[in-house]
């Protein structure tokens, strides 16, 4: 049977195992929507803004390990995807976006809602396509999914003109394989590199493993654990590597870097070997690069060769899929105890209790995370926005499972918290999903509360409402003479009423003793809930290594030696 381009898109998506598409239609993409309605196997979730579609696809992908899919119309629909694409690109998240384009004959004539979206998204996608022939649709989709999920994953956009979707009909043929002579994702590592890495590890007295997003992407958490336990190597996890090892694992030293735990950053400082597993030496992790791990050799395991020597020159680079690299490495690594070193890291932990929550009469945001962690037993998927609340969520929640923290790390896109949580919940309906939101970020994408309500997507939103752009305010406090210009939100809406306007249960919390009750109530309430935690306005995230400085310039919580509770 001959099919239209639009039907071929649907058939191809089914071939790729897609079950959910986040999107919002418009003129140019309407033929696709016309076909989609006849495909009950492809659930379409109608968003309120295309940015939410891209970010929901991101959250869905990270929660499930599958490729997330979104769609939008030409012009403004497509450009609204860009922030979500940029975030997915920076965090290596596989998503595929299908956009409608103006008809072929109109391209280049500034037609209504014509935008060169393949041009615009060039730097924020792993690859993209403008499909000018109906015969190219199925191969393009097959390639797009392959490129998105293999090697170092990333977003791929497919732009299809309206008349290619709705014009000529052809027989649907799903290609057997992809034809990409210029694209060969690395597989197993070179044995010499693995051997060199193993001997560095076997010689090291003070080794540390830095686990990044690559561990989660290549599903290598068991191997990470085996390596760490076999040689008794302390593990630090970058923001995106959190969950690669349970927070409460004895060898887990937490997150290093700008707002990482002091003991994690200090351990890197003292280590004689850093084994980087799927991490990219981001400036938020390294601080001043010349002072990063000054005493250490570096083993850099990555699937993307362009990461080698980009920020840090590795003594031993290991190119390959991380799971395969670790499988090759583990048998060559000697069992070890590193007793002195592990004890030293324990001492650092005691001397620098970075997760200390001091006593206060006011509701502290850290306390909310701590209680949430206790009540949920670290068993929820946590999705965050960007800012102080994001850092507290990284610090004070005890993560038990891989991919249980979903956050816009590399791009730091505020507004991620609302839609990415929707995507995560749609992908993992069996899990409790808590979105930890800032009042700033929440207001960037809150229109998609309607999507939660409409589809009864059971996300629990916790707004850590400090009435300000907290993280920027903190920078102003520390580095800009406390000139709180343009960071105070004096006209915030009533978030409880707002939730209610969407038909969602809203709860307000202003006192410490209300926190636990509100969390429990939210979890007992079926469907989405918004909890507005009105927290202390001017709380700081500690520790902090100011941008471009080193661990020696680290600021720690002034009262951390006082009485309080040790969190997470």
């Amino acid at each position, binding site marked *: 049977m001959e099919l239209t381009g639009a039907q071929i898109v649907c058939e191809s998506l089914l071939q790729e195992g897609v079950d959910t598409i986040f999107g919002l239609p418009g003129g140019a993409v309407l033929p696709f929507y016309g076909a989609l309605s006849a495909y009950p196997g492809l659930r379409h979730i109608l968003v309120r803004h295309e940015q939410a579609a891209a970010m929901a696809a991101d959250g869905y992908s990270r929660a499930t390990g599958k490729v997330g899919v979104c769609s939008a119309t030409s012009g403004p629909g497509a450009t609204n995807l860009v922030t979500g694409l940029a975030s997915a690109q920076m965090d290596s998240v596989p998503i595929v976006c299908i956009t409608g384009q103006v008809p072929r004959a109109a391209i280049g004539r500034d037609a209504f809602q014509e935008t060169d979206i393949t041009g615009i998204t060039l730097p924020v996608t792993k*690859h993209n396509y403008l499909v000018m022939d109906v015969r190219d649709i199925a191969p393009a989709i097959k390639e797009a999914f392959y490129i998105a999920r293999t090697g170092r994953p990333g977003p791929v956009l497919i732009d299809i003109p309206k008349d290619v979707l709705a014009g000529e009909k052809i027989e649907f043929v799903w290609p057997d394989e992809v034809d990409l002579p*210029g694209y060969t994702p690395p597989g197993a590592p070179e044995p010499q590199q693995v051997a060199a890495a193993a001997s560095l590890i076997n010689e090291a007295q003070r080794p540390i493993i830095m686990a990044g997003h690559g561990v989660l992407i290549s599903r290598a958490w068991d191997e990470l654990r085996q390596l760490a336990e076999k040689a008794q190597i302390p593990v630090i996890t970058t923001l995106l590597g959190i969950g690669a090892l349970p927070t409460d694992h004895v060898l887990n030293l937490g997150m290093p870097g700008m707002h990482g735990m002091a003991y994690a950053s200090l351990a890197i400082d003292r280590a004689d070997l850093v084994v980087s597993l799927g991490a990219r030496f981001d400036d938020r992790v390294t601080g001043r690069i010349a002072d990063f791990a000054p005493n250490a050799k570096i083993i850099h395991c990555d699937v993307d*060769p362009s990461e080698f*020597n*980009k920020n840090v*020159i590795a003594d031993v680079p290991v190119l390959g899929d991380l799971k395969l690299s670790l499988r090759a490495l583990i048998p060559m690594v000697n069992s070890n105890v590193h007793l002195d070193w592990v004890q030293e890291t324990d001492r650092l932990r005691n001397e620098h209790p970075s997760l200390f929550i001091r006593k206060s009469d006011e509701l502290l945001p850290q306390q909310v995370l701590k209680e949430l962690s206790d009540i949920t037993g670290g068993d929820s998927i946590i999705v965050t926005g960007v800012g102080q609340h994001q850092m507290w969520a990284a610090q004070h929640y005890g993560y038990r499972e891989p991919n249980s923290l979903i956050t816009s790390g590399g791009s730091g896109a505020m507004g991620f918290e609302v839609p990415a949580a929707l995507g995560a919940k749609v992908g993992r309906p069996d899990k409790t999903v808590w979105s930890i939101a800032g009042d700033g970020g929440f207001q960037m994408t809150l229109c998609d509360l309607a999507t939660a309500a409409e589809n009864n997507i059971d996300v629990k939103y916790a707004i850590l409402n400090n009435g300000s752009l907290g993280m920027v305010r903190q*920078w102003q406090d520390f580095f800009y003479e406390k000139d709180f210009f343009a960071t105070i939100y004096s006209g915030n809406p009533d978030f409880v009423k707002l939730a209610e306007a969407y038909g969602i249960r809203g709860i307000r919390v202003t006192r410490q003793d209300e926190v636990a009750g509100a969390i429990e109530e939210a979890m007992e309430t079926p469907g989405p809930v918004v909890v507005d935690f009105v927290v202390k306005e001017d709380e700081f995230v500690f520790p902090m290594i100011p941008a471009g400085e080193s661990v020696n310039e680290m600021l720690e919580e002034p009262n951390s030696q006082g009485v309080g509770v040790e969190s997470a």
Partner: protein
Amino acid sequence: MNQHSDQHTIIALVQDRPGVLTRLASLFRRRGFNIASLAVGASEQKGLSRLTFVVTGDQYTVEQATRQLDKLVDVVKVSNITSEDVVARELALIKVRATPSNRSEILEMANLFRAKVVDVGTRSLVIETTGEEDKIDALYDLLRPFGILELMRTGRVAMVRGKTDGRVSDDVGAEFDQASRNGFAVAGARFQPGHYEGV
């Protein structure tokens, strides 16, 4: 053959797909690499073009540039042939002001450089020359006193010289490529400069 120590010659074999040049150019701009010259044309293989880039920068820059280029899906092979024995050529058209009194002097100079006069006008000559950049620079300098009206240069095209085992430029690249992908370390500082220190 590489007169400027900070210049590197990179050859890329790319798929003839719409927008492939945009992808290359966008990558160079985004990552802050400088292209001194770029020449593009068909290769001996159907559907593939071969490009010669001259990239200005230090070892770090050129290493990043080749690896980033290699990541582009449409780029089939990248080779850094800077340290290879290559034939490198550029073609230039130079339109020079000429009067009846100095025309023969100009022709002599052109002859000296084995350049061809391809157009004779009443007030100008167009000279075509092929060679390495230095030769073109030298001819240009000699002609400058007469008055250069227009200069058009193609940029370097380069090819690895024939070897007994018959390797071509891309195969040299393949070796480099593998070493580069495997992450051989460049000499010098362990840490890369220019790390971001902003908000």
